[in-house]
Every structure is written in C-alpha cells, then in structure tokens.
C-alpha cells in the first residue's frame, strides 16, 4: 500500500516537473508572467511531493518491508533505526531519489528569493532546474524504482511494481543488510555531502544558462550565484575530505586516497569548481574571461552528472555492465545533450561575451589566475583520461587495464607543485600590472625564510629531494600568506589608529572572500604537509606473531598480547579484536586494538585499524589474519604514517576558511572583496 502510494507521488512529482519545464519555456517566449509564475509554483510543489515520496520510502525502510526489493537489498532486521534511514542513499534507486529531493530543495530555495530586476532569469532558471529534475525523477520512476516489490509468479520470485496476474506478494524473512563499509558514521554523512556539493552546482549553471538565453551576459549571474558556488564548493570539498577520512578509518590499507575512479569522479567537478572560483574573480574585477567562466560552469555541471553516471551506471566494472544497465546510456545521452546545447549557446552569444578591459602584463594577477586555471584543467585532463582509458582500451582492444596511483601521482605531482608556487606568488601580484621586479621585492623575504626552513629540514629531517621541494613550497606559501595578513593589518592599524588585533579582525571582516581565501591557502599547505608525509615517508612492515612476540618499525615496538573473538547477535556481527602493547624506544605508550568485524547478514568483513595519532606520525595497525582454531598466532600489518595528522587539521581549517568566506554579510553588494594592491607591491614601483 505504502509502496504504491510512494510510487504514485514520485510519478506525480515527475509530471509536475515536466509541466514546469513546459510552462517556463512557453511563458518566457510568450512573455506571459502568469505562466512563468505557474512554472515557478510547479517547481516549488516538487519539493513537498518528493519529500512525501521519500517519506514513504523511509517508512518502508524503517519498518522492515522486505517485500520491497530496495528495502531488502539495503537493510536487515539487526540494523539500528538511524542506519535504516541512511540506507536511503545506500543503494542505486534510493540515491537517485535522494538526488532529486536535494535538487528540488535547492531549486525551491532559489526560486523563493526576491527576483525584482532579475525576473527575466526566472523562467530559465526554473527550466534548467526542472529539466535536470525531470531526468533524475524519470530514472526513479521508469528505470530504478525504489518501490518495486517481489512477487511470487508461478513459483518464481520476480520484482515488479504492480501485481502481475495470479501473483502473490513475496516477503523475505530478513534483508540483505547494508554493506558494512557504509555503516560507518563517516559514510553516513559522506555521500550526502558529496551530493549536496553536486546538486548545488546545478544552481550556478542554471543562472549561467539563463544569462546566455536572455542575453544578459554581464556579470550579474555571477554575482547572484557567488554564494551558491562557494557553498557548493564547501560541500564538495567537505565530502571529499570525509571520504578520505572514512577510507583511512575503515578500508584498512593505511591510506586515505587511492585514485580510484569513484574518487576521481567526485574530484573532477571539484577541479573545475575550484578553477571557476578563481576565474570569476577576474570577471568581477576586470570584466574579462566571460567565455571561459561560462565554459567552466558548464563543464562543472557536466562533470557533476558525469560523476553520478560513473558511480551509478556500473561502467567502471566493465563496458558491458554499462551497456546492459538501462540507465548508463540514458546518462550518457543526457550529459551529451546538455553539454552540446550549452556550448551551442555560448557560441551563439560569443560576440557579447567579449572582455571589457585588457591586461598590461603577463605577471598581472589575472594572468597568474589564468595560469592557475590552466594547471587545474591539466589535472582534470589527466584524471579524465585516466578514468576513461580503461574503458577505451576494453572497447577497442578487449584488453582490460588498470590505471593506478603511480600514473596519477607521477603525472599530477609537478602540476600540484606548480599550483603551490602560484599560491605563493599570485597574492602578491597586482591586478592589471606586475613586473618581475615588483614581485621579487614583495617575495624575497618569504622566499629566503622558506629556503632557510628547507636547509634546516635538509640537515635535521630528510635528504629526499621531492620532500624538500614540497616543504620549500609549503613554507613559501605559508610565509607569503602570513605576510599578507600582517601587512594588511599593519596598514589598517596605522591609518585607523586601531590596535593590531582589532585592525586584523576588521580587515578580515571587510574582505571576507579574500581573507577566507588566504585561510584556505594556509589550510591547503597544512594538508600538503600531511600528504607529503604519507606519500614520501610512509613505512610499513608485516609479520605473523605468536603471543608475546614483537615487531619493530621506526622507533616503535609492537608486542602482541592477546586476541579475542565473539559474536554480538544483537548487532549481527562477529568481532575479532587483537590487543597489542605499543612501546616507543622502550617506553610504554599504551595498547592498540585493531579488529575485524564480520557481518553475518551481508557476509562481509570490515577491517578497523588500531591507530595512535600524534602530530609527528600515526602508528596504524591492521589485523590481517589470525588462526581461528588455536588463537595463538595473528598476522599484523603496521604502518607508520608521518605527519598525516596535518591533513586532518588542515581539513578543519579549510572548513573554517570556506565558512568564513561564504558567511552571509549584511549587505552583500557592499562586501564585494576589493582588489588588493599591497603595499610592498606598490612601494618598489613608486620608487623606481
């Protein structure tokens, strides 16, 4: 009953979304305000409708309605209620409904705003959002229906939405249960964060399309969506970081990022989104790069859909799985159609998108921003091609190949180094004009201190040249950025007669985006410390230990004390937990408990490491294997991951930075962060 109801509501919301598209286009072309208003209301109506459909699904999930195929696949009786709710996005059909729900929420939020002088954008924004919604709801209603039930037809169990002739409903005793990897708290919030990021990027895209269609190609659309793109970026970044932390905590291979196609699928829109974030500033300040910003926002939208396609269509496991699933080709068609239509619009409006001003030097800030864009695009090209090549290879040669971390690391490392260098230079450059001399004068102190730090590290810490180059760049960016804070605050302190700290806080408050950006740069450098640490200095050892035996790694000694294995029938899990004593240079530090959880319902293992984390390094122990009959010996893999904690500290600061930059101001129009000609950039030229 509830299943039919939920399906019916999903179908109605699909129809309403279709109506919104038609009404918006018709209303805009016939200049009928009432039709446009009707389309807007249609858009608004989809949100409560999808909420009811989703509510029905959650009801089915929570109440063990295993006759519903989706409920059977992702839940089981032993799962706690909150996990049954989050199982909503734990499977294909549910996650598509989740996507639609978020999109309806965001589109509604955006259509509620006061439109005043931007009213001509309205129908087209509604149109773009609704078209996307129609696509996703169409998937839900026609292909990946989460309300499909099992029926007993002539003794066979078959999934159907509606009762086939002479069939009776079939209810399995218990469900399959959610993949144990997805039961981790990190995994409970990681997918919604990514989806939030994905979906919020639809809004800037919708405005960009509205600007192209109406011909209002000034930077109004960018100003309207600036905050949206920041929040979208926040969610996407946060989603990526959470995914990394989750991998580190439960995947049990000692790392946080494996260059897996699924990870890259989420990383690609982040790359274009980050490039967009930088290049819109050039358009706002200098009225340039209008074509490029359009292309970036279109690419981001396309990559968002493409990313969903990669993770949802099964194309990654094999080209043939893709061809067999109905939704793969549909996704492909949708991405291609929207991409072609958007690019055609850009070409149509090409003459109107010409820049208003010119640059005076190759070292001006806008030139450096463009270089930044080039580097981000380069990483994108490498990622895209790395993900696509195995498919291309399978398609043309039949040979399956792996494109693993070594490929990506080698190809992207120099580019990331280049981005770091830019992070050190660009904040010191001036809009419009800079010379090597002005930049050099602004930079030399920071560069010198960074060099000094590098020399000290060379003597005391490492002789690895890759690490030294990395540390030099990190130090350079940190000092340059700190100097920027210092210089700005000092200048304000002098001119306004404030004390240093109030000058600093006012300065930052008046230039949220700029100083938020700097905080993000600093956080990126902290993350880079962690990444360098684990990439360059990670060490590992593995060994089978009898009770009382020890294993040595770096300064640590790990002694195997005991192992216990027990069933928790309430949770449906068997726990096997080892206890190890950890010593550092002979001093007892405490015990660690790596364990393996075996889930009866899904018959899957989950490896939970025992981890001891300090600012210097992580001691990360995995229980690889044990001898169940004797419980005498067990095999452990031990990693020492130097500096990796800075990755997580950096991530937290990163969040602070974005929230600081995106926090609503009282009067947004006033708070456009101003171009910054810094003192030292100006001093030399004045003196020349």
């Amino acid at each position, binding site marked *: 009953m509830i299943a039919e109801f939920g399906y019916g509501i999903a179908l109605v919301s699909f129809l309403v979304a279709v109506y919104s598209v038609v009404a918006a286009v018709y209303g805009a072309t016939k200049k009928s305000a009432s039709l446009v208003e009707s389309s807007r209301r249609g858009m608004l109506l989809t949100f409560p409708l999808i909420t009811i459909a989703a509510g029905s699904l959650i009801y089915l999930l929570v109440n063990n309605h295993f006759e519903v195929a989706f409920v059977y696949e992702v839940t089981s009786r032993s799962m706690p209620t909150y996990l049954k709710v989050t199982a909503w996005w734990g499977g294909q059909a549910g996650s598509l409904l989740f996507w639609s729900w978020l999109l309806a929420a965001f589109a509604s939020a955006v259509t509620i705003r006061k439109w005043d002088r931007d009213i001509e954008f309205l129908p087209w924004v509604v149109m773009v959002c609704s078209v996307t919604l129609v696509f996703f709801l169409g998937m839900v209603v026609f292909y990946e229906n989460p309300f499909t039930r099992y029926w007993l037809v002539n003794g066979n169990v078959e999934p159907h939405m509606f009762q086939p002739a002479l069939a009776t409903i079939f209810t399995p005793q218990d469900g399959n249960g959610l993949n144990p990897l997805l039961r981790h708290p990190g995994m409970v919030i990681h997918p919604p964060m990514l989806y939030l990021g994905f979906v919020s990027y639809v809004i800037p895209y919708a405005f960009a399309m509205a600007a192209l269609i109406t011909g209002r190609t000034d930077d109004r659309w960018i100003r309207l969506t600036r905050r949206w793109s920041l929040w979208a970026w926040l969610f996407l970044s946060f989603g990526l970081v959470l995914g990394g932390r989750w991998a580190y905590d439960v995947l049990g291979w000692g790392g946080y990022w494996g260059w897996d196609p699924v990870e890259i699928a989420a990383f690609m829109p982040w790359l274009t989104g980050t490039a967009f974030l930088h290049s819109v500033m050039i358009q706002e300040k200098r009225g340039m790069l209008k074509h490029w910003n359009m292309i970036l926002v279109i690419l981001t939208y396309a990559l968002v859909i493409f990313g969903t396609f990669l993770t949802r269509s099964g194309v990654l496991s094999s080209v043939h799985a893709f061809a067999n699933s109905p939704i793969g080709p549909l996704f492909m068609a949708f991405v291609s159609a929207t991409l072609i239509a958007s690019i055609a619009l850009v070409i149509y409006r090409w003459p109107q998108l010409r820049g208003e001003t*010119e640059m005076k030097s190759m070292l001006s800030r806008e030139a450096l921003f463009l270089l930044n864009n080039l580097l981000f695009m380069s990483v994108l090209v490498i990622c895209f091609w790395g993900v696509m090549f195995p498919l291309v290879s399978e398609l043309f040669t039949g040979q399956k190949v792996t494109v693993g971390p070594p490929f990506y690391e080698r190809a992207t490392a120099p580019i990331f180094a280049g981005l770091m260098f830019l992070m050190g230079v660009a904040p010191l450059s001036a809009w419009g004009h800079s010379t090597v001399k002005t930049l050099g004068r602004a930079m030399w102190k920071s560069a010198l201190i960074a060099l000094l730090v590098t020399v000290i590290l060379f003597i005391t810490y490492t002789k690895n040249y890759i690490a030294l180059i990395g540390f030099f760049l990190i130090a350079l960016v940190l000092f340059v950025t700190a100097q920027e804070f210092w210089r700005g605050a000092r200048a304000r302190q002098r001119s306004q007669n404030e004390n240093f700290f109030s000058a600093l806080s006012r300065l930052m408050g008046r230039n949220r985006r700029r100083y938020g950006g700097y905080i993000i740069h600093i956080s990126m450098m902290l993350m880079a410390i962690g990444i360098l640490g684990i990439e360059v200095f990670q060490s590992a050892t593995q060994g089978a230990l009898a009770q009382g035996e020890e294993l040595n790694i770096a300064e640590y000694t790990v002694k195997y004390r005991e192992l216990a294995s027990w069933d928790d029938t309430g949770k449906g899990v068997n726990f096997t937990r080892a206890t190890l004593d950890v010593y550092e240079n002979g001093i007892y530090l405490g015990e660690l408990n790596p364990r393996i959880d075996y889930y009866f319902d899904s018959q899957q293992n989950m490896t939970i490491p025992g981890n001891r984390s300090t600012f210097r390094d992580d001691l990360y122990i995995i229980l690889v294997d044990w001898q169940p009959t004797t419980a005498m010996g067990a095999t452990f893999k031990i990693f020492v991951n130097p500096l990796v904690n800075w990755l997580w500290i950096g991530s937290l600061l990163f969040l602070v930075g974005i929230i600081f930059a995106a926090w609503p101001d009282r009067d947004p129009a006033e708070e456009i962060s101003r171009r910054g000609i810094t003192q030292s950039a100006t001093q030399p030229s004045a003196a020349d």
Partner: protein
Amino acid sequence: MKKFLYTFTFIILLGILFTGAALAQDKLPTDDEVNKVAHDLYCPVCQNTPLDVCPTDACKDWREQIRGMLAEGKTEAQIQQYFVDQFGDRVLAAPPLSTKFNLIIYIIPPLIILAGAIILFRSLKEWTTPKAAAASSSEDETEASPLKDDYVARFEEEAKKQK
C-alpha cells in the same frame, strides 16, 4: 671408464644433496618481501586494489603464490610477467608500453595540456598588446581599496608614466 661414471654419479648426487640442504636452510621470504612485490601488482578480481592490501581470500592465495615463487628464486620481474600472462595487463599498476595502443594514454594528456598552454599564451599576448587608443583601465584600478593610501596613488602615477 666405469670408475669415472661412478665418480660422476657420486658427484652429481652430492651436488643435489647439498643444494637441497641449502634450499631447506633458506628461510621462507618474509611478509615484507612478499608485499614489496605484491604492492606493484593489482588484484585481478577487485578493481584498483593493490595486491598487498587486498583483504580477499583469493588475494591471500596469490600472495602465498608470490612467496613460493620468491622462494624458488624468481625475480620480481619474472613474477610480474607470470601474473600478466595469467590475468592480463590489468594486474599492472599502469598500462604497459608493450602494446602500441597503450601509448595514447601517455600521449594524449600532454598534447591537450600543451594545446591549452598555447591557447592561453596566445590569448595573453593578444590581451597584453595594447590596442591603439583602447580605453585605459587605469580608472577602475584606482577604485577604492581597503588598503588605499598614498602608496597606491603614487603607484598609479608611476604606472602611467611607465607606459
């Protein structure tokens, strides 16, 4: 002649005996040695998982196989080749250059990036070449800056003079 044959057989037997003893004395390769080889191989069944960290039973067996091959004195390259022969190129971390087709993964990204760089450089050149009497943008450069002070004004003056 007969004596020679006896001696020969004796020496051979002795040789076999000693090499056998020597092999038995050799310890089995350690987990770390196995993992070192396994790290560069990818699990043929699970995607994108290096063999040294793959938790499946199949991979456990493959690691034991590597241990056996190391004990037989096979080199890392030989072991890799064995796995490639068994399961195809997908066990390697990156597509090997033995197939011409695989060249395109290494060629296409640099080409695209190069093309991007050329486009960027040309547009920069176009933008920085002053068009005659094109409106100077120094006006909006002097727009209010939070740090605006005398230095900025002087900088603007200098910038104009330099042109």
